[in-house]
């Protein structure tokens, strides 16, 4: 055995991730040692503190552009912007996760196997502030996402994928209400997620066979060499892409999304819709822009077809949904299609507009799911669309906020939905992908129907007996809603500062 040379490690550049992973470990210790009564407050504050510290660490190194830890991690403009986005959206998700005033015990249950409504169950709801394990799990997930968007070789990327996926599988199973649905969703997510991970890993193996390395720069160099096996290259690229398309919920790998979004506790759905999307597209951007940009003429049509399919599936299926969470799930699938249009522009504009879209959509979708947590009856959240009829009469403020968010999803001007769509479509036209934009505009029109149908339902129907009451949001949910709505409005009216930021950040290191 020769000398083992340690690679140089820039701890400063890794600090955001280290903070989150460290805090998650400490969180588990808190779970063990902190007294049950004050555990929730301690965990919540600690999680916020960790996210805030990590965000500060990201901001502090905004000028860093380097590859460290033996080429495994790249800290560059997109990495830092996406990490900041994940942390900001994660903080808002944490507000929804930490809400305990809407329901006794909060949305999460720690002993999910206890029969619902039994004496034990009532005692459990009364005694405890729910499952406080959710905080360290969330931190692990967020940490994994930060690593995912920074990963500069395929194995690190795979590890990061698993690190953020496993906590999410768990979190999905913890709903207090409709426990079986929640557990079923978690199991489905886990099985299909593992399946997709297997594709990804197989793809990594093929690419290793193709290029003899796993670093993205090695792949990039190998792509330029026509002597190598093209079958390995394309097979590997396809399989890696499939793994990422699964996480980003693109058709036909979206099938898990409606079931999981519906079954998961709503704050976790919000976390997945906002942060997972950022992470998945961050990784996809890096893979396509850094490693495989040499074969862009070959993957553009295939991924373009997937984008079109995704937009169509999301828009068409959203029309007949009767459940609010499923409706939002299909909306999120369609939005993944729009994001892929931005990605496929394959120019700097495409990179920056996709990042802008991710942030804009993230805040809107957090607000949307935040409102879903408020519309409740005795059985928990009332998610059937018919139940929302006439809500505008009973709770004008909440209904108005939801209407605004729906208009943003529909891409109406003065909302971030408009500026974001405008940005990605503009980038795609610049990148020569006009056909994708045509489909994007057509499906936007289709999607306006389900959104506006909800608006009509909210305002133009008479409230009836079954119209649920809107819970008075606690401080945390109120804050999350205000942040989501204000961000949606602000990014629609003065998008320039954030667009400038994304433009400054739109340069990968290789």
């Amino acid at each position, binding site marked *: 055995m020769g000398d083992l040379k340690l690679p140089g490690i820039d701890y400063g550049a890794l600090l955001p991730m280290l903070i989150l992973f460290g805090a998650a470990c400490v969180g588990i210790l808190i779970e063990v040692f902190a007294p049950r009564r004050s555990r929730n407050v301690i965990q919540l504050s600690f999680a916020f503190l960790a996210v805030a510290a990590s965000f500060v660490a990201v901001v502090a190194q905004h000028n860093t552009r380097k590859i460290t830890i033996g080429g495994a991690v790249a800290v560059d403009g997109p990495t830092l912007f996406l990490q900041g986005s994940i942390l900001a959206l994660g903080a808002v998700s944490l507000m929804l996760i930490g809400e305990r005033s809407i329901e006794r015990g909060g949305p999460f249950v720690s002993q999910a196997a206890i029969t619902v409504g039994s004496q034990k169950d009532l005692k459990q709801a009364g005694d405890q502030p729910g499952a406080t394990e959710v905080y360290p799990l969330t931190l692990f997930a967020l940490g994994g996402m930060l690593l995912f968007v920074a990963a500069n070789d395929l194995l690190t990327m795979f590890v990061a994928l698993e690190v953020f996926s496993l906590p999410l599988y768990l979190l999905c199973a913890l709903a207090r209400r409709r426990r079986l649905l929640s557990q079923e969703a978690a199991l489905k997510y886990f099985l*299909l997620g593992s399946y997709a991970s297997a594709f990804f890993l197989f793809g990594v193996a093929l690419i290793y066979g193709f290029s003899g390395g796993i670093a993205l720069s090695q792949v990039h160099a190998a792509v330029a060499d026509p002597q190598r096996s093209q079958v390995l290259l394309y097979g590997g690229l396809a399989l890696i892409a499939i793994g990422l398309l699964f996480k980003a919920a693109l*058709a036909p790998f979206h099938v898990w999304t409606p079931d999981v979004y519906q079954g998961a506790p709503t704050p976790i759905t919000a976390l997945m819709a906002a942060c997972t999307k950022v992470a998945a597209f961050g990784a996809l951007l890096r893979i396509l822009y850094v490693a495989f940009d040499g074969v862009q003429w070959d993957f553009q049509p295939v991924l373009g077809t997937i984008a079109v399919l995704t937009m169509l599936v999301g828009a068409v299926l959203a029309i007949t949904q009767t459940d609010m969470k499923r409706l939002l799930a299909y909306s999120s699938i369609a939005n993944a299609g729009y994001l892929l249009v931005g990605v496929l522009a394959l120019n700097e504009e495409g990179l920056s507009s996709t990042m802008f879209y991710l942030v804009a959509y993230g805040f809107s979708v957090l607000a949307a799911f935040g409102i879903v947590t408020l519309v409740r009856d005795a059985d928990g959240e009332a998610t059937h669309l018919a139940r929302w009829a006439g809500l505008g009469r009973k709770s004008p403020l909440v209904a108005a906020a939801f209407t605004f968010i729906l208009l943003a999803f529909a891409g109406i001007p003065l909302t971030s939905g408009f500026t974001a769509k405008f940005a990605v479509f503009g980038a795609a036209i610049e990148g020569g992908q006009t056909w994708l934009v045509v489909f994007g505009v057509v499906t936007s029109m289709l999607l306006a129907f389900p959104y506006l149908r909800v608006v009509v339902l909210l305002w133009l129907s008479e409230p009836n007996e079954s119209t649920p009451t809107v819970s008075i949001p606690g401080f945390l949910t109120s804050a999350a809603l205000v942040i989501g709505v204000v961000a949606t409005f602000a990014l629609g009216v003065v998008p320039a500062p954030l667009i400038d930021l994304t433009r400054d950040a739109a340069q990968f290191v290789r």
Partner: protein
Amino acid sequence: MEQTVEFAPASGVLSGIWLLVAIPLASAAILLLLGKRADKWGHWLGVLSVAATFVLGLVFFLNLSGLDAERRSAQISLWDFMAVGNLHVDFGLLFDPLAGVFVLLITGVGSLIHLYAVGYMEHDPGRRRFFGYFNLFVAAMLLLVLGNNYVMLYFGWEGVGLASYLLISFWYTRPSAATAGKKAFLMNRVGDAGLAIGIFLMFATLGTTQYDEVFGNVSALSSTTVLVLGLLLLLGAAGKSGQFPLQAWLPDAMEGPTPVSALIHAATMVTAGVYLIARSHAIFTANTVLQTVVVSVGALTLLMGCIIGAAKDDIKRVLAWSTVSQIGYMFLGVGLGGGAYALAIIHLLAHGFFKANMFLGAGSVMHGMHDQVDIRRFGGLRKYMRWTWLTFMMGWLAIIGIPPLSGYFSKEPIIAAAFERGDWTSWLYGMAALLGAGLTAFYMTRLFVLTFHGPERYTEDNQHPHESPFIMTVPLMLLALGSIGAGWLMSTSVPDWLEPVFGAEEAPHEAVLSHTLITILSLVVTVLGAGLAWAMFRRGTALEPQPAGVVVTAARRNLYTDAINEAVFERPGIYLTRALVFLDNKGIDGLVNGIAAGIGGTSGRLRRLQTGFVRSYALSMLTGAVLVVGAFLAIQLGWLA
């Protein structure tokens, strides 16, 4: 003709010209927004705001007259109104000699009519609303004449259109008033569309809508462009001023309260077309075909107005047709160009006085006669309404052009100018103007005699003619003074005053008749027309329509212009809309609903693929994966290339 147009920036007092628009606008906002709370004092606020605007206008006017002739204009730019691409439009105002006289006319006559309306509308529950609209009109009209670019003019143009529409339909519960409002609105749309397209064309060819830049660069345009641009502006002008072929709305607009008829549909708004052409004189003088079209429109309309006016029995409609006819004289004037521009403006100002005078007099008659408007049912009113009679007489003598009243000084020069046009057309337009003078004398005398002289022919027993209150007769007296003196005063001062706007007077063409002869001729036809009418109607007239010849029947039916409009535009329009509705219902809706149903059905079927079983999800993912890998390999192996 190369010319540079420059407006001096405003300085000193003149930088406050925006107040002229702001004051009535603020007053209108207060009256319309405060609602019933302002009912008690609202009308006085309305009068006060216009009177204050008049005083301000006078101050600005005097200030302006103190400047050198070359620098006699004041331009301010309040803010950037529109900035889209290359289009930059300032919210800018221009106070120059032309705008100055208009400001004085609008606010001066406007103040008197506002005052009169306090009495006229006393028993109307909607008086505050009326004054709100009235102030809105004044603000819009002032913006129209004060704008320093065509977009500002258009802004005011649409504003007066709105106010006019609201005021014609003021008594909106009456079907006739509602219909008349709609008619005015629709016919004005035609003209406004022309004006709008004209402004677009201006921007497309010159890249600006600013007066100075447009006028300075007209010579760079091809003559076809100038012709099209001028015709579009003329269409707008004809719509607003009730000129052929868009004259039909103006007489119907008399459904509004009489002060509205006096201010908007006689003295000010309907002259906006004349203002537009006078303001755009650089465009109109650049193309002789264009000038001929304007002159023809003017001559034709002035004759039409006279002929129809002679056959009408409704006091306000006679006055309305007379307005159409008099504006025809003004169009004739601006079409002749050169020194006739100033003549048209003088006639416009003089007309503002005497027509407002007569409209208010008619209102006073109606006030005393229980809202009766049929002149066949008046007669001998001079005994009961001394002031109304006397002041109306001044207006009557002024409009038919008896010296030394104002109409003589304003109309006779236009007739003379028509004879000076320079070729055989001098005869055509000169004779038309001369004939118009005789006809005017005939029908105005008929109106005057049937109303105030001859036997009493009141049909309802409860009619007790009485003089109107003081607040209504005082404006009448002041306007009568204007009808008497304004013509002489202006004919000596206005041409010099307007010289900075229209340029120095060119030497006229050789007149086909000597000026003295024309003066004598026009006086002769006037006296003839008036004497004929006096002889025919001094013993009154039948209460019912009498059988009449072809000409009179045609004139009673507005020379069939309404029938032509109906046959040519309205019916085909109705058929077109019906066809479109059919197409929309069956074709487009069918298509849209069909697509929607198709997508909905697809959605419903696709939904079933979402079974909830992990195994089927995994299968669909596998299928997708096989397809994706297959597609990549296919591309690689060249199958799809």
